[in-house]
């Protein structure tokens, strides 16, 4: 009797769960569906959303969810098999490339995504049959079918722990990867369209990941994957080796395959560029470089860096650094020389120095710098080891701490190198996005991180200082109704000190009366401050030119003795200027975090009374946080004003303040790299999604990403050490030796 009721209850429970999952799918269908309706027909959106074939997909998702919840626990032991996670990542990558990414930029194919491209390419006789087969000349969904086959094969190999199956899957995945890239390249060639589309390459990466996952599974004896610190271990094995490999891959493409010079409709690789200039009077060195020196430099540096990394050899590491940096520089000189000469020689379509360049030279530069970076990592590793030995080996003993440092340093180097050499190869659209979205918001996030992340003061009016910086620039360049005296008319970059001063004063003026307030009260006051500044800007016609704002602000110029630098129409120039500003500020702030002031901020954030008791002047220290954050924002304002040339009070709305806070939180409050990464990702994503999803869905995807992030990484993208500890309830010890705390007598 009793037993029966338990069973019945379980069945009812099950039914309920099923119903809930279906309802979830239904709601999802409504959310993702069209959101438009008309006055006459309110039910339009609803009917569209539940229109027959669509609703089935979403109900299907519901059923899948139900199955996952119900049978998930039973599948658990299989989910930890070695290789299964990488397999998931690989499959997901391929799916993304087949659905979200563009496979071509050519306007002939309507959205450039896989589906329309495949439809167009499959029947095209001029394309070779292997490529056509990939696009479905025999069976319309060939790519998908192959993906499913290889996935099932790989998964079966892993779950049944059968090496032959896994090997088969690995081989198949490898072939598919090459095939996908081959087909994509064939299309580019056929369409004669220089392509920035990533679909084919990403599909290849995805398939290769599947292949590696299967190989791992085939060769692994273990029943369970050892995922703990996996990446740390891989990168920690030989310091810098990851960078050497990356540099090798990038450099191969750069040296042998990619275009170095592409005036008119030519696409010359390194060796064809050499023959192009063979008949001209290109200076001897540049010609030698193009002829053979370029290849030699690349391979020599590669070998030196590789050996230095493998042997952890100090001298070789120095050699790799010097070689890498010098040959990067030489490459740049050569590129400048031949592109300038190309303009003079009147090659068809050649415009002069730094123009008409392909991606090759930049990729080569990136590769050479990566080798130098590898050398640096080797030295760093040796230094840590030396220190550890001296300090009684408590750093080296733990091992993983060193490895983790390696990961951070390697990532940082890759980011820096990408920031230097990627932008010239990007389209004009992305160059503009880099400057006016990503770069500026990174700068703002760095500033706000001081206030919110380090000092723990929630500032919702941060954009006000940005406005003050912009208006200061407009004033000192004489573009406001009120004019400075003639002798004080400045070029925009010279406004930076004044903008900093103005923001310092404004920061102190706001902070002095309000910093006694805590938490939410401070947030509201700062929010009010931001709005006041905007409203003043909007209404003080005689001073700020009201809603029309300031315009014709000149672009920055530097005239220092023999150096003359001017910025103008190309976004690229502004990008490098911004990079210099960011680098200076990051270097300064990096010191700041571990300085006395930084420790004082940390103390105040954690316990203000205790901070006071240890003799910290809490008021001044908080004021300083405010002022420093504000002046960073002011610098961003100067840059913004002189880059866009004109702005209105509408550029400084509350929404922007809130966005910056969101970036900092998303990236990791209190962590400098985190705040920067957060701003970069969240400003890049909307622009990226522009091409990938319908415009009205964009915010939804971003919202979903933020939600997922906050669930799985609540401390942010790159969490600050302290904040991570706070959120994980302090239960993780701060270092390896703390786990070995003697039991003590217990309190």
């Amino acid at each position, binding site marked *: 009797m009793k037993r029966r009721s338990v069973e019945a209850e379980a069945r009812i429970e099950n039914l309920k769960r099923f119903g809930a999952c279906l309802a979830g799918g239904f709601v999802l269908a409504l959310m993702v569906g069209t959101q438009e309706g008309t006055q006459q027909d309110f039910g339009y959106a609803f009917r569209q959303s539940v229109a027959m074939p669509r609703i089935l997909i979403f109900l299907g998702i519901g059923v899948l969810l139900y199955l996952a919840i119900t049978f998930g626990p039973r599948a658990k032991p299989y989910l930890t098999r070695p290789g299964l996670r990488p397999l998931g990542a690989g499959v997901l990558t391929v799916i993304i490339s087949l659905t979200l990414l563009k496979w071509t930029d050519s306007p002939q194919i309507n959205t450039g995504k896989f589906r329309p491209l495949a439809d167009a390419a499959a029947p095209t006789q001029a394309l070779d049959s292997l490529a056509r087969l990939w696009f479905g000349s025999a069976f319309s969904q060939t790519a998908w079918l192959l993906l499913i086959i290889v996935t099932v094969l790989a998964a079966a190999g892993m779950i049944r722990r059968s090496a032959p199956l896994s090997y088969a899957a690995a081989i198949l995945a490898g072939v598919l990867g090459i095939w996908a890239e081959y087909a994509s390249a064939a299309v580019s060639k056929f369409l004669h369209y220089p392509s920035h589309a990533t679909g084919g390459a990403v599909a290849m990466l995805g398939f290769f990941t599947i292949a590696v996952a299967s190989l791992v599974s085939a060769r692994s004896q273990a029943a369970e994957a050892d995922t703990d610190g996996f990446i740390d271990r891989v990168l920690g094995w030989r310091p810098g080796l990851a960078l050497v490999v990356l540099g090798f891959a990038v450099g191969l493409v750069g040296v042998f395959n990619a275009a170095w010079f592409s005036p008119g409709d030519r696409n010359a690789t390194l060796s064809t560029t050499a023959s192009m200039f063979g008949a001209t009077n290109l200076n001897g060195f540049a010609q030698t470089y193009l002829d053979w020196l370029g290849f030699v430099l690349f391979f020599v540096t590669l070998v030196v860096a590789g050996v230095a990394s493998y042997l952890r050899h100090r001298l070789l590491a120095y050699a790799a650094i010097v070689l890498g940096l010098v040959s990067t520089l030489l490459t740049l000189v050569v590129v400048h020389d031949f592109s300038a000469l190309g303009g003079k020689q009147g090659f068809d379509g050649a415009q002069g120095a730094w123009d008409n360049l392909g991606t090759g030279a930049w990729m080569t530069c990136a590769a050479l710098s990566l080798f130098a970076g590898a050398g640096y990592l080797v030295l760093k590793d040796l230094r840590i080891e030396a220190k550890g030995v001296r300090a009684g080996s408590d750093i080296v003993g733990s091992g993983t701490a060193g490895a983790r440092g390696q990961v951070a340093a390697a990532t940082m180097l890759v980011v820096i190198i990408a920031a230097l050499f990627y932008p010239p190869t990007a389209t004009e659209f992305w160059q503009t996005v880099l400057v006016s979205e990503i770069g500026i918001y990174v700068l703002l996030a760095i500033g706000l991180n001081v206030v919110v992340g380090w000092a723990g003061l929630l500032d919702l009016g941060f954009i006000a200082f940005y406005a003050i910086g912009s208006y200061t620039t407009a004033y000192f360049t004489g573009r406001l109704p009120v004019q400075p005296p003639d002798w004080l008319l400045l070029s925009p970059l010279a406004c930076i000190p004044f903008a900093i001063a103005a923001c310092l004063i404004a920061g102190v003026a706001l902070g002095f009366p309000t910093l006694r307030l805590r938490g939410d009260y401070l947030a509201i006051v700062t929010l009010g401050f931001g709005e006041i500044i905007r409203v003043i800007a909007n209404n003080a016609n005689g001073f700020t030119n009201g809603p029309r704002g300031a315009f014709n602000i000149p672009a920055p110029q530097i005239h220092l003795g023999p150096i003359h630098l001017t910025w103008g129409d190309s976004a690229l120039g502004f990008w490098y200027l911004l990079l210099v500003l960011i680098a200076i500020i990051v270097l300064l702030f990096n010191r700041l975090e571990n300085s006395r002031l930084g*420790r004082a901020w*940390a*103390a105040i954030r954690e316990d203000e009374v205790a901070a006071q008791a240890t003799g910290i002047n809490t008021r001044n220290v908080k004021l300083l946080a405010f002022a420093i954050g504000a002046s960073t924002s002011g610098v961003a304002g100067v840059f913004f004003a002189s880059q866009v040339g004109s702005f209105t009070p509408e550029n400084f709305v509350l929404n922007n303040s809130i966005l910056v806070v969101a970036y900092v939180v998303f990236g990791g409050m209190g962590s400098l790299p985190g705040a920067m990464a957060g701003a970069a990702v969240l400003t890049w994503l909307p622009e990226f999604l522009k091409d990938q999803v319908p415009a009205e869905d964009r915010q939804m995807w971003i919202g979903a990403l933020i939600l997922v992030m906050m669930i799985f990484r609540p401390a942010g993208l790159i969490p600050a050490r302290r904040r991570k500890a706070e959120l994980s309830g302090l239960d993780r010890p701060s270092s390896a030796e703390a786990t070995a705390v003697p039991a003590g007598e217990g309190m």
Partner: protein
Amino acid sequence: MSLLEVDDIEVRYGAIRALKGISFHVEEGEVVALLGANGAGKTTTQKTVSGMMRPSLGEIRFDGERIDGLPAHDLINLGICHVPEGRRVFPLMSVAENLEMGAFRFKRPDPQLLARCFEMFPRLKEREHQYAGTLSGGEQQMLAIARALMGKPRLLLLDEPSMGLAPLIVRQIFDIVREINSTGVTVLIVEQNAAQALGLANRGYVLETGEMVLSGTGKELLADDRIRAAYLGEEITT
């Protein structure tokens, strides 16, 4: 001349007069206990001495110099270190970092002093790299005291160091206070634990709703009927 002289100070929280004109003094090298019921104004007294609050009337002199109205971060430079009520450690800093913060007024912490602190509190040495927030209550209190010591105090203000601790640990804490005092640090201690505080103290004062009602040597106060009734829970039999 006394090390600390408090002369008829009045302290207000808005309209509330928390201290209604109290006077006392602490001699160099003494341990002085401040007793009183909840809400009598003991914490307020200590905060005023350490500069976290200002008196609205009256004078405070340290070493003969007037210090009332000076902020806490100036007073700590004179050697007045405060261990505030309720074990306020920095939870997300390691034990070692907490101790470094205690020496904030110096350019860098004195390594010998650090070693002495760890000697005095071996438990803290064992937990040097642990987050302070994960320490037990007693360990946190020890850390709070050690952190104040890192500021090289001449006058150490302790606010209820035994609050919420097991009797064994309370005894340890009091032993440590005695040891600190024996190195020449003057101590002004606030305690509910009257018997132990008076056993340790040279002299004591009793506060009641913002007024000083009793004073005397530790022994005198321990013998006083009113004290015994109010703090030691004994019936007055006479």
